[in-house]
């Protein structure tokens, strides 16, 4: 090897060592002391072992104002590249808080955009790991333009490739809108924060005093705002969660999810022991789900938000399905604003990415009250109807127990395009419950009766006998078959198999106008 070779290799090695140093030992130690991994460690945890390939590792900011020329580091505070997750190609970016606080400038944004463009070209999922102080103020409006470039790409990629944001540190201001456009947001209990304006600005503008975690911590976004879809204790658990989610998803909208063999089921589960026949008695619908899916395959989405509806991914005979289920043990499974939003967004995701939908129905009504009406239950509830109607993936419904009124229609009824509708023998499919119905249609008869209570009970019994069963709906074709509970899995498997190559066209249009 001549001198030029050895000098060149030495120079390259020095560059690479400098890149691997990140922001230096002290800053890496500080990152670790906060319970956070470094950007590079996160890449390693996300990808299959030894598969990560970095791109643009030497990209450096050209900014010079406010001392930036002395703070520049190769990589510009973000690592980008690709690797394998479960053997499939995935692209990712990981912001490095140890370099200029992970702030986003022109070069930093360009690197993320380059990785996103490659993900789109390769039709592969994109994962964004966020840990950043926000816009790099020293770079002025170029940093804002950088965000705009990312938001635009997030929007163009929406519905084409799965996009997942993992918030592993601060994510403030406009930076929140990239995760918000993505399909799923992961957060950690230990370090994640998301807010448009931080506690100091909140105090100066409104006078309200609030901590960063109370304003935008993981618990708040999981339970109150519904911004976070998954929350884990720390970085390692969180990135394992991302790996698990990717296992359910296809690479893009032109693919189907991989089959993951694992047909074991819970043979001890007995649906009549889980679901009481008394329509007013509560139960946990997740026990029903776990009774017929591949054992342990249910991954619930937004488990702490709008608990009256349960949504998530599962497998049946190894194939991914999306489940939407009324949760009887939370406000009797009534549909309200947040449940409608949660359900509609999940349905649309499944429809984008060729994931069949299974709907488990036990719903008494849309939630009544001025709070719901004044906050727009009409507008929000319509999203659920719209999403089910618009979805062209295989759609299967099982009416478990109550299915009343408009809420019955909204939960993937035959009229909204359900391909197959099953009902258990205890199902009650009606305009409303017996008491409410008799109060309206029997008002005159009750008021004229000598014994009003006896008359009311007589009419309730008559209504129950005539309407509160699945057989009228079956006779009229709104239910395809009334099935025994123990047939549930085999019927779903058969329906999914029949619908495997379903093709359904919707009228040509630029896009629909879902009531947002």
């Amino acid at each position, binding site marked *: 090897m001549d001198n030029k070779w050895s000098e060149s290799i030495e120079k390259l090695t020095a560059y690479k060592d400098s890149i691997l140093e990140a922001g230096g030992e002290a800053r890496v130690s500080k990152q670790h002391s906060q319970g956070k991994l*470094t950007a590079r460690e996160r890449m*390693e945890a996300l990808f*299959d072992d030894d598969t990560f390939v970095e791109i643009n590792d030497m990209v450096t900011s050209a900014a010079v104002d406010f001392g930036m020329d002395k703070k520049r580091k190769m990589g510009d505070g973000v690592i980008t590249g690709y690797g394998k997750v479960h053997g499939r190609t995935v692209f990712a970016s990981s912001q490095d808080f140890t370099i200029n606080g992970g702030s986003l400038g022109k070069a930093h944004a360009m690197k993320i955009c380059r990785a996103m463009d490659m993900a789109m070209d390769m039709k592969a999922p994109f994962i964004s790991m966020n840990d950043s102080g926000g816009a790099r103020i020293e770079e002025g409006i170029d940093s804002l333009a950088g965000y705009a470039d990312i938001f635009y790409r997030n929007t163009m990629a929406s519905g084409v490739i799965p996009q997942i944001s993992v918030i592993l540190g601060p994510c403030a201001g406009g930076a929140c809108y990239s995760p918000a456009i993505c399909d799923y947001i992961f957060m950690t209990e230990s370090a994640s924060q998301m807010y448009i304006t931080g506690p100091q600005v909140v105090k100066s503008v409104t006078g309200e005093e609030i901590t960063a975690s109370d304003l935008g911590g993981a618990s708040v976004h999981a339970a109150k705002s519904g911004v976070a879809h998954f929350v884990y204790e720390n970085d390692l658990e969180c990135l394992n969660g991302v*790996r*698990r989610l990717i296992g359910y998803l296809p690479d893009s909208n032109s693919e189907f999810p991989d089959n*993951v063999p694992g047909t074991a089921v819970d043979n001890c589960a007995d649906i009549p022991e889980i679901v009481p026949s008394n329509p007013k008695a509560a139960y946990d619908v997740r026990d029903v789900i776990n009774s017929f899916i591949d054992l*342990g395959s249910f991954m619930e989405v937004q488990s702490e938000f709008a608990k009256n509806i349960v949504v998530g991914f599962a497998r049946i005979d190894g194939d991914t399905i999306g489940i939407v289920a009324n949760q009887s043990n939370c406000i009797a499974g009534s549909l309200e604003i947040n449940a409608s939003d949660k359900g509609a967004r999940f349905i649309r995701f499944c429809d984008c990415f060729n994931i069949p939908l299974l709907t488990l129905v036990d719903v008494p009504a849309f939630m009544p009250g001025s709070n719901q009406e004044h906050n727009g239950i009409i507008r929000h509830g319509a999203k659920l109807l719209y999403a089910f109607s618009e979805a062209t993936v295989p759609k299967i419904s099982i009416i478990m127990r109550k299915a009343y009124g408009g809420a019955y229609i909204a939960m993937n009824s035959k009229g909204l395009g359900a391909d197959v509708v099953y009902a258990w023998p205890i199902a009650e499919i009606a305009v409303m419950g017996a008491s409410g119905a008799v109060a309206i249609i029997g008002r005159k008869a009750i008021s004229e009766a000598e014994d009003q209570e006896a008359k009311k009970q007589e009419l309730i019994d008559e209504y129950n006998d005539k309407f509160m069963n699945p057989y009228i709906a079956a006779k009229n074709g709104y239910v395809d078959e009334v099935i025994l509970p123990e047939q549930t899995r085999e019927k779903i498997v058969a329906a999914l198999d029949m619908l495997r190559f379903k093709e359904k066209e919707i009228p040509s249009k630029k896009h629909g106008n879902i009531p947002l």
Partner: protein
Amino acid sequence: MTDTELTKEEIVAMAVAAIAEETGTDAKNIRVKSFREMSLSPLQRYIQENNITYKKYTLEDEL
């Protein structure tokens, strides 16, 4: 070196035994051509230094 740490020879012997078992080959017929110690990755080092119990999730974990 502490009592619990393995020597290079012991590590190679264990690797040979594992390959023999996996492939059904007689260990005597396995020849080690080269041996190189791999340094820990940053993540492996962090996990080791902090005594963290961690297993990367794989699809096989579902089974």
